């Protein structure tokens, strides 16, 4: 059952459930697609998280109650989702970049080779983007790779740093402070400011695969 709540005076939160899952993700994707298609007057912007969608609206054009009524009717919309895009991202796990590999090896009791194998094996689901421009939250990391955040977060994580924390893995899209355990780095821009038209590598609903590259390949791709 969907739950609708006022979120401040100009937004509304729709909650689809309590636990993040592929099924719930799909339900949200269908909802977003229907919302996009319906073009409800007064809806300004909407963006999804793991189990919820935030909708910013103009209450000069549509009241909260009216908006909820319109949203409830979206279920009747027939929409099709495109097949998800698979984005392959090269990662160099070389010691020059895998700053916390020994810590991760210790916590997971796995050898580096196995860590890399488990990290590159899945096709991850992009649940949502957030934190910094272009940063994506992935679902589907192997449980064996779970480890704690760093006790003291780094003041500066480099753009492209690939990290693990808890059940999550991801790539820092801009240089920023961060507490994830760094196991590698990608030469690819996750958020490319110079590309005005399409600065984001990944969008919600995409699938992501990591593949291993050598330091030499990293250097070649960085140019």
């Amino acid at each position, binding site marked *: 059952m969907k739950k609708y*709540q*006022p*979120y*401040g*005076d*100009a*937004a509304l*939160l729709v909650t689809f459930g309590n636990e*993040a899952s592929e099924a719930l993700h799909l339900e949200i994707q269908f909802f977003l697609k229907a919302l996009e298609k319906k073009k409800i007057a007064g809806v*300004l*912007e*909407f*963006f*999804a*998280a*793991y*189990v*919820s*969608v*935030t909708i*910013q609206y103009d*209450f*000069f054009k549509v009241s*909260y109650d009216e908006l909820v009524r319109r949203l409830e009717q979206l279920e009747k919309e027939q929409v099709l989702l495109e097949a998800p895009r698979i984005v392959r991202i090269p990662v160099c796990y070389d010691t020059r970049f895998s700053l916390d590999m020994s810590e991760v090896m210790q916590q997971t009791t796995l050898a580096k080779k196995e860590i890399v194998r488990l990290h590159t094996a899945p096709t991850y689901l992009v649940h*949502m*983007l*957030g*934190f*910094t*421009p*272009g*940063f*994506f*939250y992935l679902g589907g990391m192997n449980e064996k790779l779970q480890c704690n955040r760093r006790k003291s977060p780094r003041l500066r994580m480099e753009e492209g740093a690939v990290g693990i924390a*808890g059940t999550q893995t991801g790539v820092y*899209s*801009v240089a*920023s402070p961060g507490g994830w355990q760094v196991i590698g780095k990608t030469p690819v821009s996750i*958020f490319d*400011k110079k590309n*005005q038209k399409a*600065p*984001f590598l990944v*969008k*919600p609903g995409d699938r992501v695969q990591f593949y291993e590259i050598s330091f030499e390949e990293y250097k070649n791709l960085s140019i």
Partner: protein
Amino acid sequence: MIEVLQGGLQTLIQDVGRAGYRHFGVPISGAMDCDALRIGNWLVGNPSHTAVIEMTMTGASLKFETHTFIAVTGAHMNACLNGKPIQRNETVAVERGAILTFGKLEEGFRTYLSVAGGFQIGAFLNSMSTYLYASIGGVNGKSLQKGDKIPIVENREVALRKLPDGFLKGKVSSLLKVRVLPGIEYNLFTEASRNLFFQREFQIHADSNRMGYRLSGPLLKNSCRDEMLSSGIVGGTIQVPENGNPIILLADSQTTGGYPRIANVASVDIPYLAQQKPGDKIRFQKISLQEAQALCFDKEKKFGSLLDGYLPR
């Protein structure tokens, strides 16, 4: 052209923000005090969403290499043109070669400078707003610095305007009443914490910025699970991390957050909050959704009628 002679503490080009990219994790940004932005743009005959310069706590020194018209709105920082004081909230003619400076901060926290015709700089994702964290917008994504040059429209003539007396609320108080609506996780906070939230004063912490205002006051407790799933954030959301000290998320806040949300600041009060500075105190007052929206309707009526029906939202 405007040449920056001195940048000031944090001097940023801001417009009404970069809406429409939050699903890609890009914050809205934009002027913290959007009322000051709108009034400033009205005074120099610009569309209300035009980019302006936002100066926080201290002002910049700027040299105008062309004749134009400007307006200073927001905080009182003793603006002077060629050493002579100029009034806030009215159109001011600027001669070629004139130098605009700011002095001591007297009242408020953020001063805005609007220029007839706006700035001739590129936009990123449809906005000129500077977002420092990802170095986007404005001039090279940075705070304005000595030597920066901002192209402007040359020799634009505009009508002289003045904001009617009494249009704005009186002096900015150092104890501001901030009206809020109960937040998404309001009911997960203990009854004692909910009461404290509305009864006690909170002080704005020094470690506050355009992303958010950290508050100190009574610690707020809730019965949330250890870790909440990240959820969307809108401007004015008040979240409470484990340490119990609330944070009011503002223009540059991340688009998602994982802490329980006790309340949301009513839209009409955000510009006033943006003029509060670290050390100032605030007190929260609970209002309903209907009341919050009614306040906005009233405000737009006031903006619309007093300013000749200008300033469309």
